């Protein structure tokens, strides 16, 4: 992220997984290093276990807060199926950093649909066992910190500054667990 060009990151997942936290950490980091940034979030009903996406645009003099189809440099996906759902947002040559976790959408639970097979072979990028590593760090809730650790490494961000941005956005009593989760994610890619 040393160049002046705009970097567009699409964060997708299932409501409740912490996509909002991830975008806010990226926003904090970008502000800390003196870049212009716009974030766009989804609140309200869509957050209740539905498919969610948030946009992060970092660069100089950003206009639109949203990323168009075919415009994302990177998709950070907290769930595999969600990565596939939004794959058409990826720029040619862009990459997907995804959690290998599967969360069954309600139509799959009720038997109206099947969870697609072979998703990973369709995703250009790297998978991380965020759920497994989060349990190693202490609790499944830290899976988003695992993914942020992986993102930090993947994008070549300043680890100390990025980790500090994360730690400033979370409740103090979860700092140690999130620090462990971040380190595990960082080492995983």
């Amino acid at each position, binding site marked *: 992220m040393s160049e002046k060009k705009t970097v567009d990151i699409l964060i997708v997942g*299932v*409501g*409740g997984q912490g996509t909002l936290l991830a975008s*806010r950490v990226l*926003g904090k980091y*970008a*502000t800390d290093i003196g870049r*212009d*940034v*716009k*974030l*766009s*979030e*989804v*609140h*309200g*009903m*869509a*957050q*209740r*276990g*539905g*498919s969610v996406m948030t946009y992060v645009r970092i660069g100089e003099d*950003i*206009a*639109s*807060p*949203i990323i*168009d*189809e*075919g*415009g994302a440099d990177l998709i950070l996906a907290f769930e595999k*199926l*969600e990565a*596939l*759902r*939004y*794959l*058409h947002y990826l720029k040619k040559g862009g990459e997907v950093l995804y959690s290998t*976790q599967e*969360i*069954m*959408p*309600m*139509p*799959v*639970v*009720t038997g*109206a*649909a*099947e*969870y*697609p097979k072979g998703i990973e072979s369709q995703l250009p990028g790297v998978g991380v066992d965020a759920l497994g590593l*989060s*349990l190693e760090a202490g*609790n*499944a*809730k830290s*899976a988003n910190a695992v993914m942020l650790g992986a993102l930090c490494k993947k994008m070549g961000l300043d680890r100390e500054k990025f980790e500090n941005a994360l730690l400033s956005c979370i*409740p103090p009593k979860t700092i140690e667990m999130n620090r462990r989760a971040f380190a595990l994610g960082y080492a995983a890619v």
Partner: protein
Amino acid sequence: MKKLMLGDHAVARGAWEAGVKVAAAYPGTPSTEITEEIARFPEVYSEWSPNEKVALEVGLGASIKGARAIVSMKHVGLNVACDPLFTASYTGVNGGLVIAVADDPSVFSSQNEQDTRLTAVSAKVPVLEPSDSAEAKEFTKYAFELSEKYDTPVILRLTTRVAHSQSLVELEDRKELGLRPYEKNIPKYVMMPANARVKHVVVEERTRKLSEDSETFPINRVEKKGRSLGVICSGGVYQYVKEALPDASILKLGLVYPLPIGLIRKFAESVDRCIVAEELAPHIETIVKAAGIKVEGKEIFPLEGEFSAKLIRERVLGEAPGGACANVPARPPVLCAGCPHRGVFYVLSKLKLNVLGDIGCYTLGAVPPLSAMDAVVCMGASIGMAIGFDKADPEAHSRSVAVIGDSTFIHSGITGLIDAVYNKAKVTVIILDNRTTGMTGHQDHPATGKTIKKEDTYELDLAEVCRAVGVKDVCTVNPNDLAATESAVKAALANEGVSVVIAKKPCVLLKKRLYEGFRVNEKCKKCKACLKLGCPAIVNGKDGITIDVSLCTECGLCQGVCKFGAIDGEVK
């Protein structure tokens, strides 16, 4: 100092910097965070009002008494507040009165996609529309100035994308203002016919004057580029236009009602092709075309949904549409794992009842497999609709219920209940009392016993309210106790009068704790009874039925429906 801020927070900051003294609101996505943020400022009195009408009346009263006041709501909230709005337009203000209203193009979290600008035109109230967080703050301050200068309430119109995006904002200090002197003024503030007739003339003249003055307002500005294409736009759409059409000339309107017709005419004449780009209704376009100015608008743009830079390139330049979404199973929002509403909807689904629903998280009771909802319209409508069911078909009451949340009941359900008793309806009302305003992110309300600033206050007793309006059959159940909930609902349905069942259990998200999650043991017969709960933590996968420990909140509902004792875990 620059700070990355949510559009809503920037509005709050702007109000604070403008010396606002009173803020009132009822929560509503995407406007909720305005008042949550204002509540953090000790200089400002802030409140969650029971509904938007009361909020606006509180704001108007504060304004008449000489304070600057801000009232915030979502677009459909403005419908509730329309009664005071239309006449506050006549009375005008003393201290500045700003009404922040957030529209929801693409219906992310609402029941319709209405356009606040059209309401403002009917009420003859000026509208400002910011395009990002920096403008959200600046326009809020400017709105207070306009309000006082032109003696009118001013609407600050946001959309989801402006309200819930974050961008950089320059922070400034608060300007502390004393109260403006209040003088009793019957012709100005008492809107009886003789005064209202006079004030209507004043309102029309004010609108005309504002339109004329706005020709030179700095917030209406031309960004001159090429001659071949000119775009008239405002709000979030301006950002998309700037990105999609870097060579186009732009007339960016900050005041979107009334409009600077002279400026618009001059701009349109200065370009070969002039387009109005606006989300939802053709508000600017209609006024501009009525003035005989040649523009393109909804001939090329949709009336529905939010825009993007991509959509503008497609519709203006003929660019090909983007790639399609992969053909994968949909993931609709669902009631959270551990949601206390689930038990009630499981019972309603099992009993195959008609359910008149209401606005809140529990609208998700309509999602399969529960599918336990027949109609959802607006805040408080469930009880009225249940009365209508009963009056249309005397047999309906034994097969139908109204469900309404605690906050929604206080917002506008109580009057429906009074109607039910007064007009001898046979209805069963289930109040889904999760001790908070859930969908909008856990705001307090009159029955939580806490104010917006978390101070203790009188805790409204919902059961006593029901009894006070004349309901004799009122009971309270724990909705996670399925047997008790089912028998309470059956007893209420058998009652030939008005019954209220209060299903009381706090929203699972209020408990900020970590869970281990329950486990399915070897006794599981794969009967799939637990799947009927529609719990997102229960997975029917290749390894049989399992529980996703990252989602499970140990509510125990699945243990209640499992006949084989196949789920291990202890409800704490």
